[in-house]
């Protein structure tokens, strides 16, 4: 295809000076090269490949996590859930339950994995609450690192956690000690998005106060949450405004529901109370739409940050530790590089030797004939 394009350019180059630069969509137009078609190609390939996303949800029992996930993705991820009573929860340990669902919308496939953490915050002593969760996250990084360093890299499955929704209780005044401890333990490993669910328990004034309090406490304890990237300067005004609104609403206070209620003549998803109907998709009632927008428009960015920041952090830490003991932490990078290069050279020499050996064997093998057979 490249060759034909160049030929066309040669033919029409004489005419270019006379012609005005026209749209490059039409192949007949003079000066057409064709790489403006690249975004379409990317689109086609990505639709074919499908998208993968892993979302982790963490929070105490009864804060509305499952309902919210079901509402966000219009599915029922927990069809036969059995909720344990208080007596069973006393000594309960944290479990990790990953469920995958394939969502398709207009030909675009999303393979969504939701990692749930039942048991978090349940036990009477939550000291070891998050060890299981952190080791799960590390395990996924470890597996990816292993696959990436392997010889056959065709089918690397990305199970790394791209985003973690951390649920904050709307019944308190802000963050609790467990919240702070957990977020500080994972903010260098995963993108944290704090969420306040069951927002129908807060009046507008209380909501603003709680959001501000949570943001203040996050800053006070130096917790790094996921920051939405600012809109590029060449984006249109609407998009910039939307991004600004989204940024101003963090943490999102949402209400989840998959029940259809009749309100104002139409059927909406919401919660029915004697005093009114809370509409899930009404921006004046809660930030559900904002959360969904944020998740969808920034899914790619979340994956990139996970890859470029959190995974790279993990990888460099891991390789530094490598086979050595953790005590030698002040080995400088140059030394490691040199050592790695030396190792590479040795391996290359070994491969060259083996190849030479094989060549020789094959030659002598030919000479000797089939009587000896050949062994490698």
């Amino acid at each position: 295809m490249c060759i034909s394009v160049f030929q066309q350019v040669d033919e029409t180059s004489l005419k270019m000076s006379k012609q005005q630069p026209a749209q490059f969509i039409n192949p007949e137009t003079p000066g057409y090269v064709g790489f403006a078609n690249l975004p379409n190609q990317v689109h086609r390939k990505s639709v074919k490949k499908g998208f993968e996303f892993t979302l982790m949800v963490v929070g105490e029992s009864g804060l509305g996590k499952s309902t919210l996930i079901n509402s966000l993705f219009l599915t029922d991820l927990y069809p036969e859930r059995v909720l344990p009573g208080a007596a069973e929860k006393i000594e309960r340990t944290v479990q990790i339950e990953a469920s995958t669902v394939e969502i398709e919308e207009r030909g675009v496939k999303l393979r969504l994995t939701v990692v749930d953490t039942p048991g978090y915050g349940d036990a009477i002593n939550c000291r070891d609450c998050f060890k299981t969760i952190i080791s799960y996250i590390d395990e996924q990084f470890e597996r990816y690192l292993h696959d990436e360093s392997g010889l056959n890299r065709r089918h690397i499955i990305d199970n790394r956690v791209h985003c973690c929704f951390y649920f904050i209780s709307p019944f308190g005044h802000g963050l609790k000690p467990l919240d702070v401890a957990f977020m500080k333990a994972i903010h260098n490993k995963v993108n944290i998005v704090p969420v306040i669910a069951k927002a129908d328990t807060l009046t507008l004034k209380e909501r603003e106060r709680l959001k501000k309090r949570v943001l203040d406490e996050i800053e006070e304890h130096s917790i790094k949450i996921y920051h939405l990237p600012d809109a590029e300067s060449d984006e249109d005004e609407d998009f910039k405004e939307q991004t600004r609104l989204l940024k101003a609403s963090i943490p999102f206070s949402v209400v989840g529901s998959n029940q259809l209620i009749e309100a104002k003549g139409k059927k909406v998803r919401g919660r029915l109370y004697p005093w009114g109907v809370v509409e899930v998709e009404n921006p004046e009632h809660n930030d559900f739409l904002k959360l969904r927008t944020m998740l969808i428009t920034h899914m790619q960015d979340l994956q990139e940050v996970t890859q470029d920041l959190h995974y790279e952090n993990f990888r460099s830490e891991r390789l530094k530790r490598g086979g050595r003991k953790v005590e030698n932490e002040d080995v400088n990078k140059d030394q490691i590089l040199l050592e790695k290069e030396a190792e590479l050279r040795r391996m290359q020499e070994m491969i060259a030797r083996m190849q030479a050996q094989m060549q020789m064997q094959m030659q002598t093998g030919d000479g000797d004939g089939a009587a000896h057979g050949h062994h490698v």
Partner: protein
Amino acid sequence: MSDHVGVESLPDQLVNKSIQQGFCFNILCVGETGIGKSTLMNTLFNTNFEDREFSHFYSHVNLEARTYELEENNVRLKLTIVSTVGFGDQINKEESYQPIVDYIDAQFEAYLQEELKIKRCLFNYHDSRVHVCLYFIAPTGHSLKTLDLLTMKNLDSKVNIIPLIAKADTISKNELQKFKVKVMSELVSSGVQIYQFPTDDETIARINSSMNAHLPFAVVGSMDEVKVGNKVVKARQYPWGIVEVENESHCDFVKLREMLICTNMEDLREQTHTRHYELYRRCKLEELGFRDVGPENKPVSLQEIYETKRQEFYTERQTKEEEMKQMFVQRVKEKEAMLKEAERELQAKYEHLKRVHQEERLKLDEKRKSLEDEIACFSKKRAASEIFQNQAFVTGGSKKDKDRKK
């Protein structure tokens, strides 16, 4: 002649007396930080008690007690509200219930001490015993939390517990029903005894038993006034509607107020005194060794037991004193003997030394004597030799001269 005696006015006399004295009621509110304890108290008593927002970062659970004097229709009420601070915030909640139990016990102990005093004035005593514990359950919609179960199990034998579902405007009607059923079944299966509104008095039996079926009460608290229709009511205003606190189809607030204050306040106080306090008193006195039945299975009064205890204590003390005296005497004797022994030894040593000294002296004397003898001898010899020399000199002197002259 009428059959009227006048006995029917007796309750009125009691009532008049109690109005004169004023009433005293103590409420303990147990619940997570921010669950709405203070707001509910304000709403219940229609007063803005002083309240502050507490932080989530206390390392231990504490209790704060505040006493207020209220008046309604000439009836005076001394109300004490005790609230937990920092409950449910810690990462390790194993010991969270202990400060609450300690507080309740402390109030019982204070009353017991007053009761046991010789000069006491119980009628003037400010009864600080906790009459009711309102336990605030978080409206998760699932079940009780582990902390709730543990705490209530440790409190049910010490105080009347009325469980409440706080911030109930976040649960829809059918979710609420399921939640109530789940909570009650959990309490029953764990053997937690909550307060039952009394059904023995026929005038209130029916309403009480129907209220018992509504437990736990789903409450909403608010002191904000909102205009609804042409009335101004206490409510919470949302974009999707207004939750009226005193609307029975919105929440159980009115039921709680009715049950707690209007109907059963006196019963709560009575139960506290006759059941919980008595249990505490019995356990405490048994610990101290008091019994109701003496050694021969004969009923024994507290006085007798006290006397016997006292006697026992005195005799024990006396025997101990005797023992100590004996020991003291013994020790003194031993010390004396030791000292005497030491003295004797010293004496012996002294004698010995003296003897040795004397012997030495004798020896020395002898030596001196012999030396003197020798000296005397020597001087005699010398004298003799001198004489001899002189003689020799005289005779030989001329010879010397002669030698010299030569």
